[in-house]
């Protein structure tokens, strides 16, 4: 990487400093194709058949400090997060407009019902493209490959071209999970019978905790975790590696636009994710967490199931790039639900839009083809991202494992020193005794 992101080194001594004043518990309500039934059946059916999925999750709190998540496949997998404070309002969805996404006519399709709440902050994460490249040098370095590989070594697909299956959605209202899955022939060669797939499995959180699956990330009530999986897909090249192109868009009414940053926090402690010593936070506003979103991940992906240290490989990210209105990426954003939420303000100066590539793989890991599988876990949320701290168990283990033997040595050392001293003093006695005796004989 050319410019290293700000690097915070957490050492043993610095026990966690994250202030947790955020909401710790939220009530979730999930709608799939929200408001769609209000339109005529053809529109609803069309949305379901062409894979235009919209999931609306409202994460509310008693104080009306609410988070509104919009997950959609329209124009590519995207997540929009809005924070409202004053009144308990819901989002409304205009499906006539939403289905016009191809023509960038989608603006204003998602709005709040009356009474209009105060939108404190909004931000969005969009997966725009899937990059596949023939890493003939086994560098697993996207920057290097961009410079050294010619066009025929690339297979770049717009996520908007994929058909997302409504049948595989598996919305579970009790666990607040659902899956965007595609088995589209954009990915699969025509003569291929393999049932390969690409999926984003989302899990909206309502409280604090830690997932039991690797990478066992800490989560908070302000976030949504997701697994990105490329499974059983026959790659275009023998040395194929994959990368995701991601755009993050942020808008706060309160402050002037602040540049985003990608923070890499190092730790000596890998107790939760064996072999992973870093966590990465892409912050939309590094200075003011109450008007900031975060996109958090550990730089690890898994190349087969079950997830384990042996099946882990690396995740790298590129530097952030600005997204210009005139760029080709801009068109991709215009076709997503982002435009429906941000409207014309998407391209004004107050809205910060950044883009980066997230690539999977490490040299000598055998490329994607080794197991035909790649899975990556990340989280998107509002406010201060969760941060790991060294657990009590580890502190106890360290103090027991190292302290006890040191104690034994010290005690043993003192004991043997005292014994030695005693021996030495008792060693003099016979000499004294002898000389006294001699004196006595002289006297006698």
């Amino acid at each position, binding site marked *: 990487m050319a410019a290293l992101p700000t690097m915070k080194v957490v050492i043993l001594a610095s026990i966690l400093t994250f202030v947790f004043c955020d909401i710790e518990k939220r009530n979730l309500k999930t709608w799939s194709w929200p408001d769609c039934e209000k339109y005529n059946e053809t529109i609803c059916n069309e949305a379901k058949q062409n894979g235009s999925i919209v999931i609306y999750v409202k994460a509310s709190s008693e104080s009306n400090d609410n988070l509104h998540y919009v997950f959609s496949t329209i124009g590519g997998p995207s997540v929009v997060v809005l924070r409202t404070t004053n009144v308990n309002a819901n989002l409304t969805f205009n499906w006539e407009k939403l289905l016009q996404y191809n023509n960038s006519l989608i603006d204003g399709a998602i709005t709040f019902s009356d009474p209009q709440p105060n939108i404190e902050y909004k931000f969005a994460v969009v997966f725009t493209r899937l990059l596949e490249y023939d890493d003939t040098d086994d560098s697993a370095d996207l920057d290097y490959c961009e410079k050294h590989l010619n066009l025929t070594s690339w297979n770049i697909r717009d996520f908007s071209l994929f058909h997302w299956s409504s049948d595989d959605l598996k919305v579970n209202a009790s666990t607040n999970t659902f899956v965007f899955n595609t088995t589209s022939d954009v990915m699969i060669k025509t003569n291929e019978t393999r049932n390969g797939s690409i999926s984003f499995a989302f899990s909206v959180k309502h409280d604090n905790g830690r997932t039991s699956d690797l990478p066992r990330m800490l989560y908070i009530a302000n976030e949504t975790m997701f697994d990105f999986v490329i499974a059983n897909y026959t790659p275009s090249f023998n040395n194929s590696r994959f990368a995701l192109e991601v755009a993050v868009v942020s808008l706060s009414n309160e402050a002037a636009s602040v540049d985003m940053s990608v923070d890499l926090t190092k730790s000596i402690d*890998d107790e939760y994710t064996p072999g992973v010593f870093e966590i990465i936070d892409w912050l939309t506003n590094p200075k003011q967490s109450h008007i900031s979103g975060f996109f958090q991940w550990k730089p690890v992906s898994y190349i087969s199931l079950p997830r384990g240290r042996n099946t882990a490989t690396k995740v790298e990210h590129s530097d952030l790039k600005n997204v210009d209105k005139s760029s080709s990426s801009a068109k991709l954003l215009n076709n997503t639900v982002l435009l429906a939420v941000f409207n014309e303000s998407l391209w004004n100066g107050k809205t910060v839009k950044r883009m980066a590539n997230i690539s999977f793989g*490490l040299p000598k890991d055998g490329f994607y083809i080794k197991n035909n599988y790649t899975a990556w876990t990340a989280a998107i949320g509002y406010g201060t991202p969760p941060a790991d701290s060294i657990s009590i168990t580890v502190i106890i283990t*360290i103090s027991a494992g*190292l302290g006890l*033997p040191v104690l034994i*040595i010290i005690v*043993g050392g003192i004991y*043997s020193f005292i014994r030695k001293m005693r021996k030495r003093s008792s060693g003099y006695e016979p000499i004294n005794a002898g000389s006294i005796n001699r004196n006595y004989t002289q006297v006698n």
Partner: protein
Amino acid sequence: MASKPEPDEKTPLSQVVESNNDDSEEELQGCSGTAPCNPKSCLHRYFPVLVLICFLSFGSYFCYDNPAALQDTMIRELDISEGQFMAFYSFYSWPNVVLCMFGGYLIDRLFGVRLGAIIFGLFVTVGQVIFALGSLFNLYSLMCVGRFVFGIGGESLAVAQNTYAVKWFQGKELNMVFGLQLSFSRVGSTVNMNVMQPLYNYIDQNIHGYKCLGIALFVGAGMCVFSLICAIVLSFFDKRADRVLKRKQISSEEMIKFRDILTFPLSTWLISIICVAYYVAVFPFIGLGLVFFEMKFGLTPTSANAVNSLVYIVSAVASPVFGFLIDKIGKNVFWVIIGIVVTLGCHMMLAFSFINPYVSMVIMGLSYSVLASGLWPMVSLIIPGHQLGTAYGIMQAIQNLGLAVIALVAGIIVDQNGYLILEVFFMAWLCVALIAGVLLYLIDANKGGKLNLSAKARAIEKLKLDAEKSSN
């Protein structure tokens, strides 16, 4: 040992001959009269004897890591799983948790070191041939049998090698010789790592698949034959030296009995504890080091691999040097404790800091060399010659057991709790080694500090002892 003052480099040879009152002195003729062939000459000790001792285990170290050098090829050509591949190592190590103890005992009791070395060398060769045949006919189970037979020979051969070293070098350059043995074992596996894959690729031009693999493994068997030849030649020289130097024969009353093990002094067991507790904190760590260096320190796989093999490379160069120095300085227990403490420091650096791992691994390689060349010769200072094979066998067995068990446990710990806890686990083992080291020092000091004498004091002690003997 001979009942005359041992010649050292400074005593002229003639003097030694003069002081020997035995009139049945054998006349050495022809080449035998020249220094390299004369068992009384110190040159003879180095060449050919030391060279032969060093090459004794070369074949077995070369072949031990054949599977690792050809890992991907083997898994592909034999169509076996990673687990089946790892079994090649399990079939070697698990039986040896017990067997090399008997190997050492058999050397003392039944074979003697000469026949012992040849027999175990044969086992190594036959085992490797079976392994190669198994590959040639693509019989996985036969290959496992081969590894098992190979293992029976390999570990006991190492015991024989140690016994030989003590027999020829006790009271002389023993620490250096142990250091040199260590570097030869490293050279053996390094040569293997660099040679086997190119060799396979070369053979692959004409013969393909598992047959090619089998032929490549037969080349390994060739190395074993070479070591076997060394064993035979060495037995000739050793026998000749026994005759010329009139080395004392062990009488049948003196012959070790199995219950003699129980009478081994406490120091022997402390040395064994240090041995196992120290080695399990170094080798299982190296086994798991790659990912650690890649992920924690951000090294590329190539440099992570380089860092990981640093301990081997550094120790190959440094251990004869440190052995030589310890020969000159003495104070073995002190050096062993230093080795443990420094290694502990290296593990702390790796666990609790982001300091470049090149630094800690080089230092770990150095401290390992100090420990290894100081630790093993201590046994020969406590245990009488006719029990040495058994003592080394036991030490090796305990070490094998420790390595086998801890490698498994370490794998589980790192998967469950990560590298930080794993490092703490290794540090705890080093603390155990440290406690044993300090105890050894105290116990030894109580008994007059035989183990921790300086080289000077040791020489004086020896002269006194010899003077007493001759006055008797």
